[in-house]
């Protein structure tokens, strides 16, 4: 097992990672970079809790080896915004109270971010389809959908 350092850009900062190349990106983000956003959910890319942006596209970091990330631009939940200066999607999720336990929240927010990047004003049907493979067990779907519509500027207070 050769371990040459792998250089990746995470949330705008360059990191040299020494790990086996087939290590899923998820573990590098969580353990080497101490990021909490991406979560382990299934290890099979099924549930979406581990979603990050790789070169702007949603990617399931539990099935994406770190060797494939060399030179790529990775953004996690932490890279979107902070409590003091949240991203518009994060703020929309707070405003809509779109979490119960919140474990799936990372995937919901990142997937919404990826969706809005290619479709800034999705219809409800498009939003539902985009989130089809992000699982939520608490049943927060209604609030999450509202958060997506709010983040895309399509939910007015009058409609509340």
């Amino acid at each position, binding site marked *: *097992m050769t371990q040459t350092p792998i250089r990746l850009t995470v949330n705008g900062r360059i990191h040299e990672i020494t*790990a*086996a190349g087939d*290590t899923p990106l998820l*573990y590098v983000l*969580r*353990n080497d970079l*101490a*990021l*909490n956003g991406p*979560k*382990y*959910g*299934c*290890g*099979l890319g*099924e549930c979406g809790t581990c979603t990050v942006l790789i*070169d702007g*596209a*949603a*990617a*399931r970091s*539990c*099935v*994406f080896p770190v*060797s*494939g990330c*060399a030179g790529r631009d990775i953004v*996690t*939940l*932490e890279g979107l*915004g*902070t*409590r003091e200066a*949240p991203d518009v999607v*994060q703020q929309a*999720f*707070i405003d809509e*109270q779109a*979490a*119960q*336990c*919140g*474990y*799936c*929240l990372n995937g919901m*927010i990142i*997937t919404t971010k990826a969706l809005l990047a*290619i479709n800034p004003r999705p219809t409800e049907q498009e939003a*539902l*389809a985009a989130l*089809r*493979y992000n*699982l939520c*067990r608490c*049943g*927060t*779907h*209604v609030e999450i*959908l509202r958060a997506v519509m709010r983040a895309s500027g399509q939910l007015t207070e009058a409609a509340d």
Partner: protein
Amino acid sequence: MASPVSNEAERPSGSLVVVRTVDEVTSETFVRITADGSVTAYNGHVDLGTGIRTALGQIVAEELDVSFARVVVVLGDTALVPNQGATIASETIQITAVPLRKAAAQARQVLIARAAERLELPASELRIEDGLVRGHDNRSISYGELIGGETIRLELADDVAVKAVGDYAVVGHSVPRVDLPAKTTGELTFVHDVRVPGMLHGRVVRPPYAGVDAGPFVGTSLIAVDETSVRDIPGIIAVVRIGDFVGVVAEREENAIRAAEQLNVSWKPTPALTDLADVETALRANPSTPRTLIDKGNVDAAISGAAKPMQRTYVWPYQMHASIGPSCAVADFQDGNIRVWSGTQNPHLLRTDLALLIERPESEIDVIRLEAAGCYGRNCADDVTADALLLSRAVGRPVRVQLTREQEHAWEPKGTAQLIDVNGGLDADGGVAAYDLATRYPSNAAPTLALLLTGRISPEPAVLQMGDRTAIPPYDYDHMRVVAHDMPPIVRASWFRGVSALPNTFAHESYIDEAAAEAGIDPIEYRLRYLKDQRAVDLVNAVAERAGWTPRPVREEKDGEVVHGRGFAYALYVHSKFPGYGAAWSAWIADVAVNKSTGDVSVTRVVAGQDSGLMINPDGVRHQIQGNVIQSTSRALMEEVSFERGTVAAREWGAYPIIPFPDVPKIDVLMLPRQDQPPLGVGESASVPSAAAIANAIFDATGVRFREPPFTSERILKGLHGDAPARPQALPAPAPPQRSRIWENPFAKRAGIFATIAAVCTAAIGIGTALLPGRAIAPIARPDASVYSAATIARGQQLAALGNCAECHTTIGGVLNAGGRALQTPFGTIYATNITPDVETGIGAWSYPAFERAMRDGLHRGGRQLYPAFPYTHYAKTSEADLQALYAYLMAQPAVRATAPANALSFPFNLRPLLAGWNALFHEGREFKPDPARSEAWNRGAYLVESLGHCSACHSPRNALGAERREAYLAGGFAEGWEAPALTSLSHAPVPWSEDELFAYLRTGHSRHHGVAAGPMAPIVRDLKALPDQDIRAMAVYLNSFNDTATDRQAQDALATKLESATQVTVASSTGARLYQGACAVCHEVGGLPLFGTRPSLALNSNLHSASSDNLVQVILHGITEPVSSDLGYMPAFRNSMSDTQVEELVTFLRKQFAPDKPAWTGVRETITRVRASTH
């Protein structure tokens, strides 16, 4: 309210605390106010994702008259919070908050009395605003000032007056959840995110009796653990075994994962377990003790006198909590100071378990509770905490243990199956003559797993009395008997949202609906006849009005393929120890659409009404109701644990689907304003009417009663049409004749074939001997590579890439071209040799003529025959100049000393001289001759493909002696357990190959119309990157000449789109379809949200259309871990997540769905077994 950032206990100056003395040395704190004015509230329950942290903060702020922002709520840390038992039964607000509310009120009263004294004003004239006590003269003093440097300790009084509801300013108003800003930005909130200095990573290996926790084999099944099996993994700290508990600890998480997968553990065979294919039979056979909960009137006489007897059985399936995050914990075992960070539901009970497990006093253990993924009852949170503690104790360092998805699915205590028999009927007036209900609930508290696995507690299952929740119907029937048959669990089971009340209510509310239908009376009107509770009546009426319920005394027959229906159900969730008490009242009106052809049920709208009494945080209650509606709709429609041989088979989301976004119903929440009534639990109530409301709606739509959820399309079709399928299914076309699989099946012991081979070879020896012996070519000193130009060496490098030399001559992770890689052939194992220029072990002593002879004639420099696994039959066609360049390149590489292991070939193939005969039969050592009738590109492509490229080595079928069949050039073959598909017009691909698609595939590893290169093809395309575009184009031109079809790009695209739209998966019609939707569709569904990488279309994928399932099985089991390029993305391996049966279901479905014109594959199960055993 402030966010809880730390669980601190100390403040520098004075404080006021309200405590309850437990014994002489122990007391429990409820509220602490410090001199700086901050307020901390302590509660023994935990927030399971329901937002009780926020609601408890509101209660304290209200009673203390401080702003909500000032209150920090500490939950579930055993060192700090009162022991208030497990967070169950939706009782936090209803029960557990009571002392907290009183403590806050008591503190306020003491502080206001002090203020009155200090301000010399009567207390009645003081006002409080956010902890500042103000008199009418505008003088004021704060709580902090009133406390000052003093330490004030108040014993919690029982008779404290709390605020009148009318005076509430904080409670009863919606406030945002305090935890969301942290959760949306990735701050530390979850136990999964705890990082302790020096922390190691652990994984556990669970026994084979997956999900079963009772029986003499539990804790006694381990035979051996072979620690040497993980010796090659770096940073392994320990392998731990205690009884049936097995765990590994490593420095890095991925290495712990690898070790847990790789660890060789042998187990005794598990005895035969209860077959759960038929839940009803299994539950009836489970030993039980009847316990009568109510026996009113004369039930037996009333039943025998019933005008219309009605005997019904309702069956509830096994279901999962299915927490989105598998459980995780961190433990730090230090002498006398043991800390665990846990997502437990019950910190104090867990501490008792941990003390028992490690035989230490509870006082040495601190359970620090952090949030975890939502649990709706007892999941694996306690199990993993105990696992972490055992591993930390073994290594003396902090250890984090993360359960895998598969472990959480398999081992979480299930929400148990339940069987409810109702006997009764209608009297002459259409009323309920009698109601005789018997319920069976095989579940207990699911002891913490490590206690069982280590043998600390007996694996004899406890029998609890929990099947009685809401077992008595809410209806005032004159003759009524309810009996709970208490029984031990069959598989590991414990409470799950709604506990036994949800299944019991499914029976109550289905039965009364059946009775109403039989009586010809509107189902709501019918219920109201028996409903005596005024709040229930109010709720039922309010929900009926909100939904626009029209009375339906007689069911109307509906026409059309999709029929609509509407159903009602009501429940008062009665929980806790019998007779228990009620939480919130709940009623549902569900609208459904049922597709009679596909069996698909959609719940389109739910009106959910609830009377929760006082709602502390109305928005929080609304979210809880919506969550309950969605989750319980999911449970009713699609959730059922599958078992194989009595163990849990569902280990990922495809096998246990939960409701996806597009299937979520529209929800209209109606919350009755009851702010003057005591607050009631809202965590579960809205789930309880769910399944019955949906079943009643399906009946309204179809006229068929469904008494066993989940209401999957198979069940609906069976209910509507009986066992016969809805549509006549096409008979499978006759299977194609089985081709000889000897080449795919290494070491096949087929005596007949072997005898033939030996005979043929022996006959050929006569010819072969003429060529023997191969003359030795004298060794030379290693050539000086500087005699070759850089351009020649570079050209040689390209040619080495074209020939994929390194692929065979390099071990995985080994030094380039140093040999040693084992090549499995039907005739035994051949080890590739060292082709670096090392003089002794490589080819450093080889002159160019020796090299050329090897390449053209398959002879070693020393004269012995080389096996044709080395494709000299192709390399022979290489031009002189190219061979020179290749030689130059190889000689210019670093020499590496490495000797390959000896080949392991069976007789007669271990006799090299026989190969001379083989060569005589099958080898033409001629250089490539261009065809002047063809284009330059074609000839260039032909040269590359047929010489070093050696495409046909894999893509042509071989004869029994392993030689390519020339008459079937590129007609498809097998290599390394993978099918190398036909590249000619014999291709099974639904869209024929074209030059452009061949170019795209060879250049990028991906063709829109065919899929991605995987298996042995991926490294080949990777190697081809060394070649310029025009060479790849030439190969495409040549290969395309074997396709007869003229290609029209537009027509091909149109065909592709047509095939894709015709094969869209819209209904989860089978286990295989559900596996596809849960596991595959995220990356393969046409038109889904783009994820990083390609999105290979299964409708077009050649492998789905092939005559053999091998490649599909290969990628499902082993994934695509090394694609041609990371740009294509990766595919995970499902071998550890799906059983053979599941993979077979999936493969069969994929074939039928995406290659509908092709016959079903035969022998899929055998293929799965074979591919599982292979290493690729």
